[in-house]
């Protein structure tokens, strides 16, 4: 019982939107596609929905090829990042719209509409027009409309990205509760924010430039990113990557930084590597690598300290709010045990143990 896509490709005006996507999505599970803007997330959802036909490759649902099934006969629903509802219909009629297309009996229709409205908290707004609602409420209507059908495939294309951030936090939690209550659909959610995927604790598909880079649980992708590209995409702020090498003396970074070789890198042969460290693992200390502050970005309760040592640029993710002036001197500590090592081809060579 699954959605299987095989070698999907699609290009528009010579630009590859999908470049050989193969994956298997199981019923009753929650998938999050993570990728930056234009990575092909939306194209993939459109292909799943049947809104765009792939150039090559096939998609099957429970073994049946979907190529000949038009969108309107598929069991699929979608929530967009723009708040898309039918402006001329009331909230009630918006939610009822997919059911009316299926000629459901009035009583059945009414009870299903009201049940879903209750779930997403719209009961008091059923008579209103979507245009009179706030962004968060509009997106709830869109979600209700997509849930009411009970489709096999539920696609959510960055549904929270256009909401204020507090509302986003709130809706994210509600979504999670609603999703965990269902077990028959395949849920696919896209986002550019890896933290969202981590919070959902879902199965993750990392996309970049139309390709699928890595598939796995959110925790495992975070702990063992397969490539430097994944390491940057699936970390916010992106993982710090520093070219360096391993030799008899230990790890060398940025010419003059020498670190003792940590245990988990013991097995690696000497040679050039790219070392990675999560911004959250870059620590400040009384003595360490002398660095200069380029900018302290403060986000509510967190400080992202951009520092530079020679041509090594790092971001330290600190919990709490701290004031740093531009050009201020700080000492940073890179703990060997937290370092990732990537080969110069970008592939993961070794990852810290703690994360696994």
């Amino acid at each position: 019982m699954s959605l299987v896509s095989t070698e999907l490709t699609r290009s528009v005006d010579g630009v590859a939107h999908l470049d050989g996507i193969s994956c298997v999505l199981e019923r009753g599970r929650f998938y999050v596609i993570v990728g930056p803007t234009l990575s092909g997330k939306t194209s993939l959802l459109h292909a799943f929905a049947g809104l765009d036909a792939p150039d090559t490759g096939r998609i099957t649902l429970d073994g049946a090829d979907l190529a000949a099934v038009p969108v309107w006969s598929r069991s699929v629903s979608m929530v967009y990042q723009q708040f898309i509802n039918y402006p001329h219909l009331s909230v009630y009629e918006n939610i009822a719209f997919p059911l009316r297309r299926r000629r459901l009996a009035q009583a059945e229709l009414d009870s299903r509409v009201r049940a879903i409205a209750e779930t997403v908290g719209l009961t008091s707004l059923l008579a209103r027009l979507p245009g009179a609602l706030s962004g968060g409420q509009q997106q709830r209507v869109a979600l209700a409309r997509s849930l009411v059908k009970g489709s096999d495939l539920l696609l959510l294309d960055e549904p929270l990205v256009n909401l204020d951030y507090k509302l986003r936090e709130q809706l994210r939690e509600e979504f999670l509760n609603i999703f965990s209550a269902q077990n028959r659909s395949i849920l696919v959610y896209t986002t550019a924010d890896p933290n969202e995927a981590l919070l959902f604790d879902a199965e993750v598909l990392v996309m970049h430039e139309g390709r699928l880079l890595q598939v796995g649980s959110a925790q495992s992708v975070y702990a063992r990113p397969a490539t430097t590209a994944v390491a940057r995409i699936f970390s916010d702020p992106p993982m710090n990557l520093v070219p360096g090498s391993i030799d008899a003396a230990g790890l060398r970074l940025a010419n003059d930084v020498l670190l003792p070789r940590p245990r988990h890198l013991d097995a690696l042969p000497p040679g050039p590597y790219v070392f990675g460290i999560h911004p959250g693992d870059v620590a400040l200390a009384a003595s360490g690598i002398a660095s200069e502050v380029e900018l302290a970005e403060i986000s509510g309760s967190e400080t992202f300290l951009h520092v530079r040592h020679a041509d090594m640029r790092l971001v330290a993710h600190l919990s709490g709010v701290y004031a740093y002036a531009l050009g201020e001197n700080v000492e940073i500590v890179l703990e060997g045990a937290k370092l990732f090592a990537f080969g110069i081809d970008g592939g993961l060579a070794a990852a810290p143990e703690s994360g696994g």
Partner: protein
Amino acid sequence: MARIDLDRLAHSYDSSGPQPTYALHPFTHTWEDGETYALLGPSGCGKTTLLNIMSGIVRPSEGRVRFDSLDVTELATARRNIAQVFQFPVIYRTMTVFENLAFPLRCRQMPQNEIRQRVGEVAELLNLTGQLQRAALRLSSDAKQLISLGRGLVRNDVAAILLDEPLTVIDPQLKFELRRKLKEVNRRYRLTLIYVTHDQTEAMTLANKVVVMNHGRVVQIGTPQELFERPEDAFVGYFIGSPSMNMLACRLADGGVDVGSMHIAFPGADRLAIKPGAKLAFGVRPEYVAITDSSAADAFPAVLVDLKSVGAFRIATFETGGQRIKAKLRADAPIPASQLFIRFADGRRLLYADDRLVAVA
């Protein structure tokens, strides 16, 4: 640059009724010369109204605006000597970058060689030197936004630069550079900068003083650190930071407050002048909730009900004394499997009466 005084300023878009519905409640404040401010709040909080009043686009229904004691309340935007950067970059489409930057000076009949010198200086600062002869229309949106800012910088008569969500349309990857540039420009020129945004990162990164607004009122003015550590208003605790500050209903009880079955000491709590019937709440940031061993006197037994990992940190939800409390923990902080205790950091325990901060312990 100038000091800007707002004197009992208020605005109502519908001032006909006996009880005006204020978009901006009466408010008195002085914007210090050379200081960087951000107006922060959710949409509809009145921050744009306030900015528009200062720039002269909106005439306030009450109160005065003074620039260095010159009353400008009735003056049109053009006569206020301000510069403004809008959400969408504004450039003169038919002109080159140089001509764009020179435009305010040409309008002021400045001699040609002086114009060239000043534009050269500003272009240098904004990294636009290499593009001076290009058509401004062909540049990327972040470069256009720099030009908008540059037109304010070339002038030497500017009282303040007002920025209205200037980074909204900028590519996320380019935001860092632009933020840095803004910060650097500000350090170099000591500008009076007033920055409107709904994005807390923008506000707290760029401004020395953040003015948090909600429902047409200024609820707190403070440094980013103050907003985080000592929210004067419950809204600030909610709006700034993620997750929001824990806010738990409580009542006064011998030298402190009772939160469910927890007793938290607030020295001097008995002497606080709190209106009878006021809504009391105990607030603590998730960052200041720590797991501890049982020995501490002010630790409370708790049960872990939810744990979410967000990369470098974990958000834990505890239940203690019938209350739910969120804590933000480092990813590598151990969580005991058996009985655990939580403790609130000293000096970070906050008490609110009717949503205003009344005590810290």
